[in-house]
């Protein structure tokens, strides 16, 4: 039995029994690509699939079922890879999603071929799931020096020039933000007009401001799915700075976002005895 066969069978059962109202997963799209599917019926559940093309982080769509006031959110099932499940944990920690309303169809992740975030990732099993599909394979051997260590070997001036060159290409389409499950603000500060934080002008300074803003807002929250970089139409290595900060958070506070839904994130808490040498 393939993962897809299991997935279709279980999705049908979940919908038939009324356990969930929808199953969020992937289906065959156009031009050999997969696309998200929100299956509401048993027939639709027959279109679900999972394979190595399923790069997208579906935790994003859980935000469409946020609790609204007194109203109970509907129960949904969702297909989540390890990084996607970490996103769910962060959303639960931040009170955006109620865990008991989500049935997690965890998938043992094969690593998505060609996705930069997967090259440095060793996680094969989601940190939270209600049912695990597929058999986890052993993680690949760690690769040699990558682009992050090469960047860190440069002088500060060279790093600044590197990013200035990268950000000059940015068209501020905000695709990196739209695809990010952690970017759920109703009005993004990048688009706030009163007071305006950044200008809508596409200038190197404004672009730099936007990327620093995005990097900062994801400190201790980024779950390293790398969707931001995958969707960037200009090929800017936006995941590079997220990965660096995730590593800094791990080294400084021993914390990795989304490994569970209880541990407070670094900016939610503090210790009195820490960081006593001010920079």
């Amino acid at each position, binding site marked *: 039995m393939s993962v897809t066969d299991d997935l279709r069978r279980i999705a049908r059962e979940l919908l038939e029994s009324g356990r969930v109202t929808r199953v969020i997963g992937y289906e065959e799209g156009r031009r050999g690509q997969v696309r998200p599917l929100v299956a509401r019926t048993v027939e639709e559940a027959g279109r679900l699939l999972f394979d190595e093309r399923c790069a997208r982080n579906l935790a994003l769509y859980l935000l469409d079922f946020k609790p609204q006031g007194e109203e109970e959110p509907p129960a949904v099932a969702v297909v989540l890879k390890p990084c996607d499940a970490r996103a769910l944990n962060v959303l639960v920690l931040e009170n955006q999603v109620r865990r008991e309303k989500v049935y997690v169809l965890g998938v043992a992740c094969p690593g998505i071929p060609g996705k930069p975030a997967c090259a440095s990732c060793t996680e094969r099993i989601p940190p939270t799931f209600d049912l695990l599909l597929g058999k986890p394979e052993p993680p690949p051997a760690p690769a040699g020096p990558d682009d992050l260590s090469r960047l860190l070997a440069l002088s500060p001036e060279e790093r600044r020039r590197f990013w200035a060159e990268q950000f000059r290409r940015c068209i501020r389409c905000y695709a990196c933000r739209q695809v990010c499950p952690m970017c759920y603000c109703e009005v993004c500060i990048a688009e706030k007009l009163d007071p305006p934080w950044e200008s809508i002008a596409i200038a190197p300074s404004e672009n730099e401001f936007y990327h620093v803003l995005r990097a900062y807002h994801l400190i201790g929250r980024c779950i390293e799915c790398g969707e931001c970089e995958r969707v960037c139409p200009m090929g800017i290595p936006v995941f590079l700075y997220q990965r660096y900060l995730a590593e800094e958070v791990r080294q400084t506070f021993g914390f990795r976002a989304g490994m569970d839904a209880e541990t407070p994130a*670094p900016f939610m808490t*503090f210790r009195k005895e820490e960081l006593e040498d001010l*920079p």
Partner: protein
Amino acid sequence: MEFEPRIVGFLCNWCSYAGADLAGTSRLSYPPNIRIIRVPCSGRVDPMLAMKAFLEGADGVIVLGCHPGDCHYSEGNYHARRRLHLFHRLLELFGLEKERFRLDWVSASEGVRFAEVVAGFTEQVRRLGPRVRPEDILERQR
């Protein structure tokens, strides 16, 4: 003409702003380069406020708050410390000079310390020179 750095200071209402006041009433002199903005707490200072100041032409930004343990709101300065720490790491990756952005503690009774901290930071930024914008870097390469 000698370079005069433009410095924005975010001062907590309860300690550092009173410390600055004391420096004034004590007739201490300190560099006039600092433009003071009073905030309720150092924990109020989103590092993006510093980025915004840089975007608008500041050469340095300093955040001053109550000493750890003295926060009027008990814990605001501890949050500020964590934020500023990781923000510095972020600045390092982007090659932005973290020396232009400082967090320090000044109590209401430390008028002398306020004058010293401001003088020290102003000198530090003066040595760094004007802040370079990415526009300037890209221009230079042509």
